[in-house]
């Protein structure tokens, strides 16, 4: 899995930069960016699988953490525009000039510094997840009730971010980004750089999650998923385990969002929409729960399907997504990863049989 990811991270940039255009093996910059976007989705899916597959928390609001990370990065990119905006104000982003604001709101200060923005990318989703998780898990809100309040959380944030007075660009969101760390965002090399950064982030995120789920804490998490009361009786503080893993997962989602925004060039409140969060649960279900690599496969397969379908038959996409979900639930309850495992078992079974015969 990691080897494949590494190979992609090396081969794709080489094919883009070193192979001349027009050559059959050339990978266009458009494709590189598209793949980069898929990789950030894959990281988001891994974050969801960590809490859903291993801890049994079905989050229908992980899109909110993704979007918050995205907004933190978007604010940095906005400040980098400087006086190159339409209104040419050296400090205020265009939408603030348009709203006739005189000064930068307090929470926009410091976002011209990359390190602060990068810190906020993990801190803001992490802090929200911590407070939310602390309240919810301590009160032992579980199951479908928890799913519903996560959904409400992302919906509330969407409504809040739609308001111009919030100071995040209202329904237009943040866009027109020019450069990042001094590199032009439109340049091929920057695109490739972001692609590689996404691949590295995915690899590190995957490894971190793998480390957690193979540790004793991971076994405690699965125990909580399967028999929460029992876990409490043998002396684990279930709420604290949940808060810790939940917060970590939200931070991963934030990083995914931060890498997503410079590649697509816009972040708006639509990212908070509950539908996004539900869709990403479908990715994990399609790929296979509680495997981590299944989440990566699911995110990439479904999003490739989405790109293809919305290009070929724009109206049919939602039907295709719904149909896919039904088919997977009916025939592949363990997702694509489960299919792999079954094939492997069948092959080893056949080998054992032929060895016996």
């Amino acid at each position, binding site marked *: 899995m990691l080897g494949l990811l590494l190979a992609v991270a090396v081969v794709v940039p080489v094919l883009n930069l070193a192979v001349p255009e027009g050559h059959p093996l050339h990978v266009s910059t458009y494709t590189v960016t598209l793949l980069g976007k898929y990789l950030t989705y894959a990281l988001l899916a891994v974050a969801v699988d960590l809490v859903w597959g291993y801890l049994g928390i079905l989050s229908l609001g992980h899109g909110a953490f993704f979007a918050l990370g995205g907004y933190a990065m978007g604010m940095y990119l906005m400040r980098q525009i400087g006086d190159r905006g339409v209104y040419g104000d050296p400090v205020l982003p265009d939408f603030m000039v348009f709203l006739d604001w005189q000064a930068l709101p307090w929470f926009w200060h410091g976002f011209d510094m990359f390190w602060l923005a990068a810190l906020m990318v993990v801190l803001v989703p992490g802090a929200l997840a911590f407070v939310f998780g602390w309240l919810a898990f301590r009160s032992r809100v579980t199951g479908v009730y928890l799913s519903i309040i996560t959904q409400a959380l992302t919906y509330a944030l969407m409504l809040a971010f739609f308001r111009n007075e919030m100071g995040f660009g209202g329904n237009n969101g943040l866009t027109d980004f020019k450069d990042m760390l001094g590199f032009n965002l439109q340049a091929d090399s920057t695109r490739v750089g972001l692609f590689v950064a996404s691949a590295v982030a995915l690899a590190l995120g995957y490894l971190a999650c793998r480390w*957690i789920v193979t*540790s*004793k*804490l991971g*076994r*405690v998490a*699965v*125990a909580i998923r*399967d*028999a929460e*009361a*029992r*876990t*409490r*009786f*043998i*002396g*684990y*503080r*279930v709420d*604290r*385990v949940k808060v*810790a893993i939940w917060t970590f997962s939200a931070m991963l989602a934030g990083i995914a969002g931060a890498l997503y925004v410079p590649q697509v060039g816009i972040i708006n409140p639509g990212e908070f929409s509950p539908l996004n969060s539900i869709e990403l649960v479908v990715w994990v279900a399609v790929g296979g729960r509680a495997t981590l690599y299944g989440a990566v496969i699911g995110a990439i397969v479904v999003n490739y399907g989405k790109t293809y379908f919305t290009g070929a038959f724009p109206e049919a996409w939602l039907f295709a997504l719904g149909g896919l979900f039904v088919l997977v639930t009916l025939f592949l309850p363990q997702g694509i990863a489960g299919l792999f495992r079954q094939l492997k078992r069948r092959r080893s079974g056949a080998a054992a049989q032929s060895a016996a015969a």
Partner: protein
Amino acid sequence: MSQMVDNGRDLLHRDRAFDFSAQQRAWLQFKESMRRDRTFDFMVKAKDLELDVSHGPILYIEDLNVSFDGFKAIDHLNFYVDAGELRCVIGANGAGKTTMMDIITGKTRPDSGSVYFGQKIDLLRLTEPEIAEIGIGRKFQKPTVFEHHTVFENLELAMAADKRVFPTLLARLTAAQRERIDEVLETIGLTEHARREAGSLSHGQKQWLEIGMLLMQDPLLLLVDEPVAGMTHQEMDRTAELLLSLQGKHSVVVVEHDMDFVRSIARRVTVLHQGSVLAEGSMDQVQNDPRVVEVYLGE
């Protein structure tokens, strides 16, 4: 007959019938929290509390009351267990056996009464994990093991250890811990099944695994709820052996319906009826008690 029992109960609890107003109760609670022989509750960590069994009993339940929607599940219950004792609790369905276990382990809060572990530790002030931490382990009526973990992992998870989040994340099995797990595997007779998923074990094996998980916690007091329900006779004999081997090192309270099984392990038996103690003594004494015969054995 039942009239007599009722009278007896009234005599016992006559001196308790105070009727405090809300303010009086708040003041009493405040005074209780300011007692000079105690630290403030919030300054005491559960694991720092020491168990004091110098007077004999390890568990004191006094004048306990719980009702659910008007139904008195526990009614002025007094119950003591000595350190190192193996005690059986019997009683018909609805006698309050499981509710009593729920209260001891912190799952249910009583309406009034006190539950002390040793002489100093007030169990009613602690949460479920804290109660587990100070050394009270519980086996449920329905065997609940972690189905997707192997037998070995089930025992590993239950093992007495630092169970906070980060120490758990960084935990590595030491040789001594591995040995301890092997030892318990031996005790419960599941050594050759150590690598199997717990979900694939038979009913009896799951019950033993659960007792094993209790042993891994190294509890001072084990609460065992219907350990032989659904077991074959051979399995029952093994379970009896297992429980008898724990006596002395641990205090054990066994709730059971099966009278043959109770007879095979019990020194002292407590009969619960309608939420309070009907009789207590050796199996023979209890069996010959006319009240017990009437409400339970003679049915």
